[in-house]
């Protein structure tokens, strides 16, 4: 690993500066390591987020982190690991437990051109601060007629966690995506996490960045391009994760993985599903979704959140408005159950979409419905 770093930094620097640089790039070291062998190396979502934060902080001194336990504790989920040591307490701020207060402080700093990255330990706590996300951040550019833009990122884990009950387990994608003035991103893979977070930090508007705690430790293959410090993904563009011709499945965050697994199962039964990773909930890539539906003529939307007024509902409306004539079957929405999250493990499993739910919905949409008894 040392050799690789040395190579990357190039010859000519003395060993003393070398050492300094070596320490400076430490948090991103895992990213660099992956450069070493084949083009498709593995990277965890956690490393992807950490290296994105590290690189953007190093590139722009206006970028700073604030939130609960982001500093000395190294992040409740270790996303900010190593950053305090590298950038100091002025740029990695441990805040008191005051979401409304520190979120508003972040927004006020962003009014003056700083680029705060505000971490919510989980997005459930963003409810304490939603006034600032919506009223102070999202609306200011409009209310001030473009005088004051708000380059801030609100990030943290979102969606159903495991065994933590109703208050700590819900998806806020549809909530924030309902608000003009916010950009809402939901990465799935390491490539998504790294590329979208870097884009979010550079973006001049408020971005809500919805991670998933259960994905942090997951490794994904990434191409060499992803390791480049200039790698950035466009906001507002979906990614077709798997091409297919029989049915379109849209999903975001953890549900992309489920959709891909469902597609594998469906392929064995002769149904060739196209899986769209939305990446950006707002702006929503209506073009990619509609193009896909016009090809497959069938649509399933998958999300962990509540079904009513959900992301799936919006996608469904978009397809009905723009591609109604192309639909060969009713749209199926696979969503979380319309209940607060139960604690008991068996009920919790029933409350969030499972792979078999997606498979079943796909079969229904393709008129290959299994008998009712089997689907119950």
């Amino acid at each position: 690993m040392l050799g690789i770093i040395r190579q990357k930094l190039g010859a000519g620097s003395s060993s003393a500066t070398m050492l300094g640089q070596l320490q400076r790039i430490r948090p991103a070291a895992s990213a660099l390591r992956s450069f070493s062998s084949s083009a498709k190396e593995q990277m965890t979502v956690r490393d992807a987020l950490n290296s994105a934060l590290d690189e953007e902080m190093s590139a722009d001194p206006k970028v700073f982190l604030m939130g609960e336990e982001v500093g000395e504790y190294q992040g409740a989920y270790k996303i900010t690991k190593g950053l305090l040591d590298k950038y100091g307490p002025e740029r990695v701020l441990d805040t008191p437990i005051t979401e409304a207060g520190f979120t508003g402080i972040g927004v006020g700093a962003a009014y003056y051109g700083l680029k705060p990255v505000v971490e919510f330990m989980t997005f459930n706590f963003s409810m304490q601060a939603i006034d600032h996300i919506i009223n102070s951040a999202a609306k200011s550019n409009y209310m001030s007629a473009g005088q004051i833009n708000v380059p801030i990122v609100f990030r943290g884990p979102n969606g159903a966690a495991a065994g933590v009950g109703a208050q700590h387990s819900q998806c806020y994608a549809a909530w924030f995506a309902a608000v003009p003035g916010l950009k809402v991103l939901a990465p799935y893979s390491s490539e998504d996490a790294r590329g979208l977070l870097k884009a979010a930090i550079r973006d001049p508007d408020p971005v809500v960045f919805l991670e998933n705690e259960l994905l942090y430790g997951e490794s994904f293959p990434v191409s060499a391009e992803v390791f480049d410090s200039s790698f950035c993904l466009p906001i507002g563009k979906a990614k077709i994760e798997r091409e297919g011709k029989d049915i379109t499945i849209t999903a975001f965050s953890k549900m992309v993985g489920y959709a891909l697994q469902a597609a594998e199962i469906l392929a064995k039964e002769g149904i060739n599903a196209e899986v769209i990773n939305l990446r950006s909930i707002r702006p929503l890539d209506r073009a990619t979704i509609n193009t896909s539906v016009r090809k497959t003529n069938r649509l399933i939307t998958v999300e962990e959140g509540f079904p009513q007024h959900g992301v799936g509902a919006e996608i469904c409306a978009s397809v009905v408005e723009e591609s109604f004539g192309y639909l060969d079957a009713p749209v199926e929405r696979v969503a979380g159950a319309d209940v607060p999250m139960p604690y008991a493990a068996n009920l919790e499993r029933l409350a969030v979409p499972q792979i078999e739910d997606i498979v079943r919905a796909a079969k229904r949409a393709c008129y290959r419905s299994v008998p009712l008894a089997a689907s119950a």
Partner: protein
Amino acid sequence: MSFSAATTQPLRLNTTAGAAARSNDKVPSSLLMSKTPSFLGSTRKLRPGCVAAKPNAQRRSAVVSVSEAVKEKKASASTNLLITREEGLELYEDMVLGRAFEDMCAQMYYRGKMFGFVHLYNGQEAVSTGFIKLTKQEDTVVSTYRDHVHSLSKGVPAREVMSELFGKATGCCRGQGGSMHMFSKAHNLIGGFAFIGEGIPVATGAAFSSKYRREVLKQADCDHVTLAFFGDGTANNGQFFECLNMAALWKLPIVFVVENNLWAIGMSHLRATSDPEIWKKGPAFGMPGVHVDGMDVLKVREVAKEAIGRARRGEGPTLVECETYRFRGHSLADPDELRDPAEKAHYAARDPITALKKYIFEHNLASEQELKAIDKKIDEVLEDAVEFADESPLPPRSQLLENVFADPKGFGIGPDGRYRCEDPKFTQGTAKV
């Protein structure tokens, strides 16, 4: 109805706040540090140089009363005057502008020229003028829904504020903000926040950005101060306490200005607040708390000078409670039935503009004619503002969808200032950015 501010005033304003901070600095920090590990059984040591370490050394802070401060000033000053002639005229003009502007708003509201919620500032002018006229252009003002006069004091032209209220394209926010949401980046007026307490964290963030620019971005000359205005009702809101804590913890250059007009719509301050002396909450968080007569612009100004100076010198935040009164209802839609006529009369007799006039005459700073000339000038300014607003065009239909994002295409703006979406490589995720 008056507060017993005199009960707890061990320290005098002009000398104490700074001196207390300095003397506390001399408290051996090792003493505090050595005590810390045993605190509640914690073995954690404070990081040397950590931002949190220093404010702890300042736990005790000055509590001061303005009347003492003014007395002190009077005694020590070479003249007996609190202001020069020029300052007196500037203050007078600003207060008259604020008063006349709001009276004009009421007229225009009843004529249907403006709409929605319109909250007028009449009676409280001494606070806006006393504080904001001491700020520099670069200093920040964060206001509430009662923000017209703060905007005017900060220098936003009356034309632009009036036009905004008329919902016209020439308004300071092109008609997109409205009465409760005044912004002017050029004047560092960053809102107009319509929710109780919402402006306080944003103001604290603005103050944070001054400190960040000085300490992290190494802009050594950034000594900008933020003034956060809010009312007595807000002082019961959690965000107030959250930000007192963080502002003191991080020693931010901010002044929290409570405009205690004794009423939160129809809720009496005394009926809503366990301890009605709001200024006492400053020392509880490690910053000076000051109580001042908010109907006396000269007293407000003395306190403001000290508080703003403290912030500018990097000595941290101050909480100032200005006891004032609004001469009109909460908004123009408020029938104002709960306030006792005797109470209203009591404060009407203490009109801050009349008081300043009296001071000016008593000290021969200006003649009645000179003040009348100012009144006349303001009348003309307002006539012009109304005419301007009235004749200005409505925002065009095309404006509706503008300004939702700084970057409406959602792909970010590149270093060349162009939308990144225009680079085809960017949509493929392969652009070098």
